[in-house]
């Protein structure tokens, strides 16, 4: 499955036109797009408007396969950027999703660039699990012809940093491949290091036999109109908050805020399924505690920098090792060098706990050097522009808990829930999620499983269908703690059900009775209907908590298919895997 085309935000159309065109183009097949391109060109020709002659490469360009394994879309975005760079350098790049690739495909290529994400506690992205299994299999095809380089994406907050990238890198070498450049490990702030690495790695991949760069001018559409504002992670748009309300009742144990942001003047567009990245700020009190622990209390300039630029909470083995090095403190070195102790120490602890446990006076530069840049937090957008125009709605659950004797909070969620008011601004950028879209055919039934904040994209889906006047078959599973106090958007679902936009809703509230009832329990209760929907070609969407919900929902789906089709669990698992590959079982989990 190739990723759908999208107009860039600086295309020469007004934002709503871009969104409208994207909505059409997204649901087109390659044949349809070719026809459209031909039709428009033909039309221009027939109407006598001189069309610009397309630039044609005059020489054979070396083929480059860019393989990506993505969960959140970062690897894919980077692969597309690499493809553009490679094109400019004279390659004929082909971007390939690991979900659609086999090791045998790769063995035939001479130049391979791999961009692989690591997910959660060291796992490969779900869409790439088949590929990884085939690559690791004893019978895997030899890679003797292949010159390759691997760019690994990860998050240092997790123990198995960049594990997937390393596994691929080592396996390709073991299968006889030639490593053209050393692997690059990237944390959440991957833009700059990745660009630098690509700058040296792409030429290295071309090798000796490569042709000189062709004298063809390639137009980088992304850079056209550079004076137009191009909002990004590093250049967020400061969106005004026009509404902010806690949707949980005042009796709830939870706080889930609905945030409405104005995109007016930004030109930003998004589609249901996309995410909005929010640039958070740290809680001033946490920054103060860190400064205090580092012996830097009272440094107001540093305080300001730490509030907005540095991740002052996330503690990883990398931070402990850096801290050990810069202080030379032997007791920290002991900890850093002992993986078992480290595995005991890290969970639930933050930077301030490390600094407090091993008091060392640091210089401002030492402290900031220890901390990674403050990453943006992604939220699945909860609205459709077809319904809300130049607005984006987010659903943000305030994270609060206790660990190691301190009250802890989620940086971005409490920044929004506690420290922002209507009229304040939030730095945002749009992060496309092309793998989480409504089916192109509105007649395809959809099953949406989204407990808690996982319901956000499904509100966007329903708004999209509502605005288009489409009442396809749809079924929502929602869950939370208590019916009376945590039924997010209840009145909206009532209205959608009443008007037939949403066909069915089932709800699970875990704390309304002794027995914990979750969405997967409701799915199992409705297994006959659910299996019929799957047989009828429904697309399944799961959004929300990855570690428990998505797994339990997956198991329930497997059991429901096994039960409904009268097949073994393994066979049901294969059907689900096939559905995943067909884009009929889609996950947006975090």
């Amino acid at each position: 499955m190739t990723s759908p085309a999208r107009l860039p935000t600086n295309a020469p159309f007004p934002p709503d036109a871009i969104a409208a065109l994207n909505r059409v183009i997204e649901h087109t097949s390659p044949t349809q797009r070719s026809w459209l391109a031909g039709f428009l060109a033909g039309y221009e020709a027939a109407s006598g408007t001189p069309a610009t002659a397309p630039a044609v490469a005059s020489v054979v360009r070396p083929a480059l396969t860019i393989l990506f394994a993505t969960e959140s879309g970062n690897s894919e975005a980077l692969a597309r950027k690499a493809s553009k760079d490679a094109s400019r350098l004279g390659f004929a790049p082909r971007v390939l999703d690991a979900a659609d690739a086999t090791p045998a495909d790769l063995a035939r290529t001479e130049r391979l660039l791999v961009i692989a994400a690591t997910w959660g506690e060291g796992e490969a992205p779900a869409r790439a699990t088949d590929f990884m299994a085939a690559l690791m299999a004893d019978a895997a095809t030899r890679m003797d012809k292949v010159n390759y380089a691997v760019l690994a994406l990860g998050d240092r907050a997790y123990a198995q940093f960049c594990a997937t990238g390393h596994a691929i890198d080592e396996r390709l070498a073991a299968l006889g491949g030639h490593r053209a450049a050393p692997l690059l490990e990237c944390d959440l702030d991957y833009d700059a290091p990745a660009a630098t690495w690509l700058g040296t790695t792409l030429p290295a991949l071309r090798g000796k036999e490569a042709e000189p760069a062709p004298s063809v001018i390639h137009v980088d559409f992304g850079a056209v109109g550079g004076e137009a504002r191009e909002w990004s992670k590093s250049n967020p748009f400061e969106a005004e908050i026009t509404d902010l309300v806690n949707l949980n009742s005042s009796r709830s144990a939870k706080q889930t805020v609905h945030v409405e942001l104005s995109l007016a003047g930004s030109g930003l567009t998004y589609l249901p399924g996309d995410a909005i990245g929010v640039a958070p700020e740290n809680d001033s009190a946490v920054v103060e505690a860190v400064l205090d622990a580092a012996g830097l209390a009272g440094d107001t300039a540093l305080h300001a920098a730490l509030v907005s630029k540095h991740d002052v909470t996330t503690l990883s083995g990398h931070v402990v090792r850096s801290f050990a090095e810069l202080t030379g403190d032997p007791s920290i070195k002991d900890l850093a060098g002992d993986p078992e102790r480290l595995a005991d120490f890290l969970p639930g602890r933050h930077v301030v706990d490390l600094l407090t446990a091993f008091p060392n006076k640091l210089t401002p530069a030492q402290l900031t050097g220890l901390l990674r840049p403050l990453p943006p937090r992604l939220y699945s957008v909860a609205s459709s522009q077809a319904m809300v125009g130049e607005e984006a709605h987010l659903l943000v659950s305030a994270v609060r808990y206790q660990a190691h004797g301190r009250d802890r909070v989620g940086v971005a969620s409490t920044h929004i829930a506690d420290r922002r008011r209507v009229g304040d601004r939030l730095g945002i950028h749009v992060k496309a999620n092309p793998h989480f879209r409504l089916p192109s055919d509105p007649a395809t039934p959809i099953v949406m499983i989204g407990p808690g904040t996982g319901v956000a994209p499904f509100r966007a889906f329903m708004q999209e269908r509502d605005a288009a006047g489409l009442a396809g078959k749809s079924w929502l599973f929602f869950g939370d703690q208590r019916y009376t106090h945590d039924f997010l958007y209840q009145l909206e679902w009532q209205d959608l059900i009443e008007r037939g936009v949403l066909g069915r809703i089932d709800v699970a509230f875990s704390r309304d009775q002794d027995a914990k009832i979750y969405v997967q329990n409701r799915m199992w209760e409705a297994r006959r209907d659910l299996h019929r929907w799957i047989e009828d070609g429904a697309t399944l969407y799961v959004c929300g908590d990855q570690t428990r919900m998505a797994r339990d929902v997956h198991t329930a789906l497997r059991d429901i298919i096994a039960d409904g089709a009268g097949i073994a669990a393994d066979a049901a698992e294969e059907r689900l895997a096939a559905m995943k590959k067909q884009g009929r079982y889609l996950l947006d989990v975090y």
Partner: protein
Amino acid sequence: MPDTNLPPPSKTPALSKNEGIKARSRALRGTIAEGMGNVVTGALAEDDTQLTKFHGFYQQDDRDLRAERGRKRMEPAISFMARLRIPGGRVSPQQWLQLNEIARERANGTIRLTTRQTIQFHGIIKGNLRPALSAVNDALLDTIAACGDVNRNVMCTSNPHASPAHAEALALAKRLSDELLPKTRAWHELWVGEERVAGGEPEEETLYGPTYLPRKFKMAIAVPPQNDVDVFAHDLGFISIVRDGAVIGYDVSVGGGMGMTHGETDTFPRTGDVIGFCTPEEAVAVGDAVIRAQRDHGDRSVRKHARLKYTIERMGVDAFRAEVERHLGHPLAPAHGASFTGTGDHLGWLQSPDGTWQYCLFIENGRVHDLPDRRLLSGLRAIANVHRGEFVMTANHNLIVAGVAAEDKAGIAALLLQYGMEQGMSALRLASMACVALPTCGLALSESERYLPDLITKLDAVMEEAGLRDQPIVLRMTGCPNGCARPYLAEIAMVGRGPGRYNLYLGAAPDGTRLNKLYRRDVDEKAILEALTPLLHEYAAGREAGERFGDWVIRAGHIQATTAGNRFHEDLPEAVAA
């Protein structure tokens, strides 16, 4: 057949909305089953909420949360109040434990004892209704006819061990309740999964007919000299007549009732009229006959005029008695007459003639819950775990730990002490009652249960100053004029008018035979205290030996006696006249 010589029930021909809902309901089924399957709302269809009352529960919402719900994109915080049918208020310790579990898991964690000897669960959400009612059924209890236009829970004087007459009263309460129950199986089908008989037409309601009664119907049995049940406050009252230790029969009172509407003087509370005497064997037949007479002659057009008391006012008591006797098939014997000493409970320990002990536990406002220093819920659970007798809910929303063998008494006493349940309270507090009101009752105009304890603390100071700490005065508060805590039979009553405002009534007889009268209108706490303080001081100084406050205010000329329900709004003091 109704007697054609009688006046028509109402001048307005159109039937009230509820009559149509009942008629269309297929014996109380309506579309309740469909509504239970609609998970996107916590509510049932509006018409069905009238029918669920017959099943024992009301749809309510938490009024404290109303303001925030819309903005949070949530419907009102809807839940249900389920009321049990417990004739005579008696449950076993095992049943108490089961009820405690239902409250904990399926309701709001509290048990509310009512003024009609039963319990209510509050805060049951729709998804918990079936499990809750099914668990009630498992406890060999039900909620059938606990609300609605039918004969509701039947009350009786509360200590079954006090005498054979008391035991007989309890037995009669059960018979009246069971035999006058609606015949529909709707409750069993909807809540405990009983299969509908194939091809079944709705059951024939041989007593009630397809539209049941025009309005609610209440019965109580009193064993003189105790009038704890306020026998004259009910549609039908039985007063035990005991001769030589044996019950020879019952004086029959009809047409009592509390509810009225503010500002409408054709609505009023009324004490029942004694219309004759029946033998114990006839009692259920009398109940049946009174229900039939009210079924045929009650007003089905205007619900606020539909109670039996208005039927009797309209027909006249003699014509009504004749109608009852026609259904009964013979005349009622002349009443024997009985007198009462009071409406309260005997709190604390008391030994019964059979040698067992009972402890009547004061439950402030009937709410069984754990307070920091008075852990009623946990304490009663602990007692239920060891108690070998029974629990009896009283008409004053207190609870009797009854049938305690002499050798078990010390153990129960220790638990009462351990959980802080045996605490000294003023006589005023111990004689007080309040209805639920805010936040769950949809009818409440003012606070009641949540506010009365604070007001009593302030009145206690006045009582203390006046030297009245140990003087009981029956004090009752309700959040609206419908009268759940029987306010119009209290020596002092506050009836809600609006937020923080009450009508103040004085002068009911302490034995429950005379209604009170409006003394001040629309008063807030300050004005209540300003009105009562001088009266209490004057009463302390001027009362005669044994004279109760409700009688004294009349003798001292502060208020005129209400001699009949239809005189309730007459002879008002100057401060509130017109």
